[in-house]
């Protein structure tokens, strides 16, 4: 678990992209919904290289800014192609004013051509 950001760093309905060493080479998007819930998923769409933090957040779903596939932030499930793989979700804990993230132990579903930065033999990486 690591401290991701202060609560106030993200306005309701918005997202923050984390790309520091704590994400272990796979950038994370932290969302704060209009209902004031926090969610964290891998930031890169499973279809093509697009940042979900730049996507369209509606309720608990984020829509990819490129092809409009929607991911459920609670489960990572995708609604319709062209994205076909679910997005990996991370556990979020809000303690006081700090948002903490526990990284998933599952392999990320990165799109073709994208490998975890700095990880030479990461699971899920492409040759």
């Amino acid at each position: 678990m690591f401290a991701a950001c202060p609560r106030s760093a993200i306005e309701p309905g918005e997202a923050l992209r984390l790309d520091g060493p704590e994400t272990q080479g796979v950038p994370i998007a932290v969302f704060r919904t209009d209902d004031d819930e926090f969610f964290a998923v891998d930031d890169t769409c499973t279809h093509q290289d697009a940042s979900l933090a730049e996507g369209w957040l509606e309720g608990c779903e984020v829509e990819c800014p490129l092809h409009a596939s929607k991911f459920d932030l609670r489960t990572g499930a995708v609604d319709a192609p062209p994205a076909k793989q679910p997005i990996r979700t991370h556990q979020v804990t809000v303690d006081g004013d700090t948002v903490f993230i526990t990284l998933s132990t599952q392999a990320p579903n990165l799109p073709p051509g994208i490998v975890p930065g700095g990880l030479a033999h990461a699971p899920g990486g492409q040759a």
Partner: protein
Amino acid sequence: MTVPPRRVAVVGASLAGLSAARALRAQGYAGELVIVGNEVHRPYDRPPLSKEFLGADHHLVELSLEAETENLDAVWHLGVHATGLRPRPEGGATVVTDRDAIDADAVIIATGAAARCDMPGVGLPGVHLLRTVDDAVALRADLHRAVESGATVAIVGGGFIGSEVASTARKLGCQVTVVVPDDVPLRAALGPYADAVAALHAEHGVTVRAHSRVLGVRRSDDGGLEVLLDGADPVPAATVVLGIGAAPAVGWLTGSGLDLHGGAGDAIQCDESGATKLPGVFAVGDCAAWFDQHRGRHHKIEHWTSAKERGAVVAARVLGAERLPTCRPPYVWSDIYGKRLQLAGYRELADHPDTLEATLEVGSLAEGSFAAVYRRGGEPVAVLALDQSRHFNQIRRRLVTPAPTAAQGATA
């Protein structure tokens, strides 16, 4: 239509047709579904064709629009050309193809558009159009050859395709000249903000031949090609890309009784949810001009997201749904020199669509990073951004749809 159709034929197997077919099933349609596509390929994604699919890492680009497990329970006729439409007295129509004839209670026409090619020299070897994956594969081979030989790639066209191909070709290492009708590429689409894209072209060493009227392409004395310009020296090149727009693929509908003069150009005229004047015949995507109540006239939207969203609308219409899905304001994006350009809403309906002072909100042209808001009566109706996705999204969420304009003509 109160009785659901027993057979629906979707003519066109790209994004609009696939989205309509998918939406029919999602909305509970259980009857026969026939999909006709003139390319042999399963539905694929076109935006990457002018971008990363031409580049060095093209083998990593995933073009398929379908999931492996997806099953629409449809009969696919791929590599089949629709040649005519015969309306039936009881509604619906018979779709005549170069293979057979398909009788359907409802027909959704989604044949899209074809790259415009009305220019002398189009058929010469080394002269490329870019619309299909086959076009892109052929162009890619020539671009990679041009890197080896150091020969110039000339790109004709001041639109998004021209600037995207220029960016991709330059990244590959090609010498690139872009030939445009205005002072800079994308002036018509972006107004003053086109200067930021022009700066990127200059920074990356792309030559722009401005204010050029192209007369055609011909083989030069040395065996290469040259792009002939009106009143200016020709542009010598080994490879020429013509990005001069697209025309609705509706030639096969001549004589069908459909009105083919919707919007600018010859698109199928439809009402505000895709119905044509023929009962049981609908149209969606680049081949169709739906009545647009915000503009008060028929209008063709050639955007990826609209093709997708409107598929659900036309499906609901085919099935006689009481409530139709709503579409968001149009949205388009482009990737140029690693920067993302995004445009949403109704820029042309703004009070000051071409004034920098009235629209610039964040960043600047000089920084190559900005967000601009277009307003009508003080309300935001469109947003344009370069490398400012976060601001773009914040503004996009606040966009209002302009009040309907009084109709200038009856709906289809």
